[in-house]
């Protein structure tokens, strides 16, 4: 299997994606941003269609759309109570735009599905390099921001009163999420992206209870899902997204079961 160049590329890109999604996901869950992540993946689809329409790469279009919209959503939904509704509104608009650009650019529907659901065969060596560079940037920024981001994510009230610039942290974090979404969409597709950004981290928090261990375990769950998913997809010729989604769901269900055993509720 590894003698095939496209499988090597898929495994390499998948590994980078699992690492950044596993890491960022811990903060996505702590900040209750799962729904936003889901929306960003739809926005990513629209961005990819826009990129194709303009004659750029899909990744460029996705980056522009997700970064801009995540900042807008962040500004619009300062109030928790308004967050879901404003995210829904933005999401509806962008799905519409995605369909529009796809139709304007005369691409076939199979192209749309490859944006939405990902395609292992579609990953070229140049894509792997792009994914690696973007992952590196995201990880470096995370590392530099680690303590304030951790404080703001796991104790927003404490962070605010201690004088941290929480609005700034929030915006930078949303941009990081947007970049991760664009990167991860290359392999799992934009529609299923929120799986890697949410489920491994959501499962990890039931097993371990420090931020660093959560990040470690979340990366491990994401890596197992991606590696095993790619392998199963290769041997069965079924979509990789299906396998990754199923594996991550299993991890999450196992975590809930573990929690039930532990606290008996």
């Amino acid at each position, binding site marked *: 299997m590894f003698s095939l160049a496209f499988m090597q590329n898929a495994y390499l890109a998948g590994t980078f994606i699992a690492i950044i999604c596993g890491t960022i996901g811990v903060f996505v869950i*702590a900040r209750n941003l799962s729904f936003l992540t889901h929306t960003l993946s739809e926005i990513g689809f629209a961005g990819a269609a826009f990129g194709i329409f303009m004659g750029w790469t899909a990744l460029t279009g996705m980056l522009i759309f997700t970064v801009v919209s995540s900042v807008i959503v962040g500004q619009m939904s300062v109030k928790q109570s308004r967050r879901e509704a404003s995210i829904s509104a933005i999401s509806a608009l962008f799905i519409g735009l995605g369909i529009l650009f796809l139709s304007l650019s005369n691409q076939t529907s199979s192209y749309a599905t490859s944006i939405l659901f990902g395609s292992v065969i579609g990953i070229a060596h140049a894509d792997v390099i792009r994914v690696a560079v973007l992952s590196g940037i995201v990880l470096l920024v995370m*590392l*530099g921001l*680690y*303590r304030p981001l*951790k*404080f703001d994510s*796991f*104790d927003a*009230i*404490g*962070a*605010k*009163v*201690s*004088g941290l610039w929480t609005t700034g942290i929030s915006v930078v974090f949303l941009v990081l999420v947007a970049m991760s979404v664009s990167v991860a969409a290359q392999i799992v597709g934009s529609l299923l992206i929120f799986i890697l950004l949410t489920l491994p981290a959501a499962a990890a*928090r*039931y097993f371990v*209870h*420090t*931020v*660093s261990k*959560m990040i470690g375990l979340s990366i491990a769950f994401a890596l197992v899902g991606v590696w095993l998913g790619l392998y199963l997809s290769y041997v069965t010729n079924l979509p990789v997204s299906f396998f990754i989604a199923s594996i991550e769901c299993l991890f999450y269900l196992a975590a809930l079961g573990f*929690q039930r055993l532990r*606290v008996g509720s």
Partner: protein
Amino acid sequence: MTEPLIAVQHLGISFPNNQVFKDLNFKIEQGDFLTVIGENGVGKTTLIRALLGLVKPSAGAINFYPNRKAIKIGYVPQFRNLDQEYPLTVEDFVGLNIRGWLPWLTKAEHRQVQTAMAVTNVKKIKQRQLGMASGGEKQRAYLAQAIVQQPQLLILDESTASLDNEMKYELLDLVQNLNQTSNITVFFVTHDLPLAKQYAKHYLALRPGQQSFGEMADMTVAQLKEVTNV
């Protein structure tokens, strides 16, 4: 006379359609234990926000000695919605308030966390998931987080409100101990007058449009009730 840490002079705070304070005056001395008492809605939390610099005064001034930058403030807020599933251990939670740019804690910072947990009596439960801790244990963990940076001023906003009687006194004993042994100045907001009477050195009683400030030793609980009643 001890040195003042903070002097509040002619402070006025107004929001559109609501004047919270007009001409508020008091000072906090170094090593003081000041309690701020008053009914709900009288502006106790607003006063804290002003001290923290989160609300701008519309008149007067809050002066810090020697200056604001030199004074580290630890704050235990009134509401923190950490539910049962809150994942972090007590130790990790306390360490959140350690500033810096390294992703990991240095040895010295690690010792700071251990010290804060020791003086607040949570060291034994440091591996416990904070969401699973009792109300009193949570408050002690919040206190530990607030003092981990070794602040000169510790602000407690109704920290005892959700605790039963025994736990209240346990928490305030810890705070008093910090006040006496580490010389941390305490600014304690409460509407529990007997508790205020037992622990505080000075009181600031707030009523709409009025204030009284003085030595706690001169007051009985009944008199405190009188000066806070609307």
